[in-house]
């Protein structure tokens, strides 16, 4: 009996936690952006403006759920669900602590492509074209930058990778891998310095221009879940996961993840968006060779000294 109920409870708990964190991040990001831009952000509804998220949710639930008559209806409806489902599925592989994890399994590109295509709107299509190209390009060396870590740990299993960071966090031997993974992570989550698929100032809202109400909310929450996911991955792969003195593992894991989420928001507060060709050139001409060189060097060193 417990063999079935315990994992189910765990899944429910993690699902709840992830969705709450993603919703809470909207408030958190607005407050942090305010802090860094010398203003306050939402501080009126509830203590510290915390109930702003609730107010926004109630508002977005009661908005008209408009599907444009020219849109490809079934695809248009499915696209926002795809983003939520894919990000949530990726969370299944995150070991939150030594004992808290679900199972040892990225399809976000589909959501962006489908949303932009089915909207039948030039801005949405431009946004999704950019999004697909950006995400595919950055996906290439996102995986490659992980390989160094995998070689050092000798396993693809995330728990094993965390275990292997007993002496030193992988950020030190794999610094180039960390930098490339971080930049790829920003591009994959379409976060601000690299938010060309959305690019409010040029493409209205990019691939989710035509979306309203809860469907738009799903894209929004999906983005924040993506941020949480990438932060969790960086923590696990490069910053020792749940390892840390005194405090229990889950607390360390949350603290480190939170620190990276803050870093994501800091980048949004500080950095301007690059031009589209600069973005692609940077991926293919700089980061991909860098990731490959890092991979070769790591492989050579592991072969030479650790065999």
């Amino acid at each position, binding site marked *: 009996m417990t063999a079935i109920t315990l994992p189910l409870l765990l899944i429910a708990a993690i699902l709840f936690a992830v969705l709450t964190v993603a919703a809470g991040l909207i408030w958190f990001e607005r407050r942090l952006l305010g802090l860094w831009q*010398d*203003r306050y952000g939402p501080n009126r509804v509830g203590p510290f403006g915390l109930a702003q998220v609730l107010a926004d949710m109630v508002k977005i639930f009661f908005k008209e759920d408009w599907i444009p008559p020219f849109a490809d209806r079934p695809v248009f409806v499915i696209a926002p669900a795809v983003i939520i489902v894919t990000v949530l599925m990726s969370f299944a592989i995150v070991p939150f602590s030594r004992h808290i994890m679900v199972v040892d399994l990225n399809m976000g590109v589909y959501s962006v492509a489908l949303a932009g295509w089915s909207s039948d709107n030039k801005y949405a299509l431009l946004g999704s074209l950019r999004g697909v190209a950006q995400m595919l390009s950055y996906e290439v060396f996102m995986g490659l930058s992980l390989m160094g870590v995998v070689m050092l740990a000798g396993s693809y299993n995330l728990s094993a990778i965390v275990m292997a960071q007993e002496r030193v966090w992988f950020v030190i031997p794999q610094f180039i891998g960390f930098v490339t993974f971080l930049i790829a992570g920003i591009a994959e989550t379409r976060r601000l310095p690299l938010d060309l698929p959305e690019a409010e100032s040029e493409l209205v809202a990019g691939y989710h221009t035509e979306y309203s109400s809860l469907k738009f909310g799903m894209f929004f929450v999906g983005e924040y879940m993506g941020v949480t996911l990438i932060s969790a991955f960086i923590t696990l792969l490069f910053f020792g996961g749940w390892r840390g003195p005194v405090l229990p593992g889950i607390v360390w894991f949350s603290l480190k993840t939170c620190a990276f989420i803050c870093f994501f928001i800091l980048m949004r507060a*500080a*950095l301007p968006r690059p031009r589209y060709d600069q973005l692609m050139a940077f991926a293919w001409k700089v980061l991909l060779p860098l990731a490959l060189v890092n991979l070769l060097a790591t492989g050579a060193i592991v072969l030479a000294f650790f065999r």
Partner: protein
Amino acid sequence: MWSIVQTLWKVFLHAASKRRTVLYPEVRPRLPARWRGRIILSRDQAGKERCVACYLCAAACPVDCIALQAAQDASGRRYPAFFRINFSRCIFCGYCEEACPTYAIQLTPDFEMGEWKRRSLIYEKEDLLISGPGKYRDYNFYEVSGVAIEGKNPGEGIDDEPPVDIRSLLP
């Protein structure tokens, strides 16, 4: 690359700097006396309405939010029978104040005029009239204008020059 790191660090340091937002309902802004807010109608020192219903404010108003009707009392002094400002239209440009020859219509540094109903934004004369002279304490139109009123003929007021004999050719 280095400049990006520098930017990140400088923005991060802004966490410690003072926030510029004025938390409005708790912290009230100090508005200058000439700030263009809610419009009022003032009275002279004797407590009589300054407005002589000349329609200049209504003519100057670019959004046509002022409506009034002239009338005369027993002494021949003009006054508005009604004076109505539709604040849902008013753009607080202050042209009415500039056009007014008697300083009757004035803008005040009060902007908290939010209402639940649109109709509540239409102010009648009772709502607009205040008890005092507003920004111009010592001004009385009839004392300087050369217009005859009860107890004062043209040329008898302060700064008032005797009327010109328009039939004479002498300078």
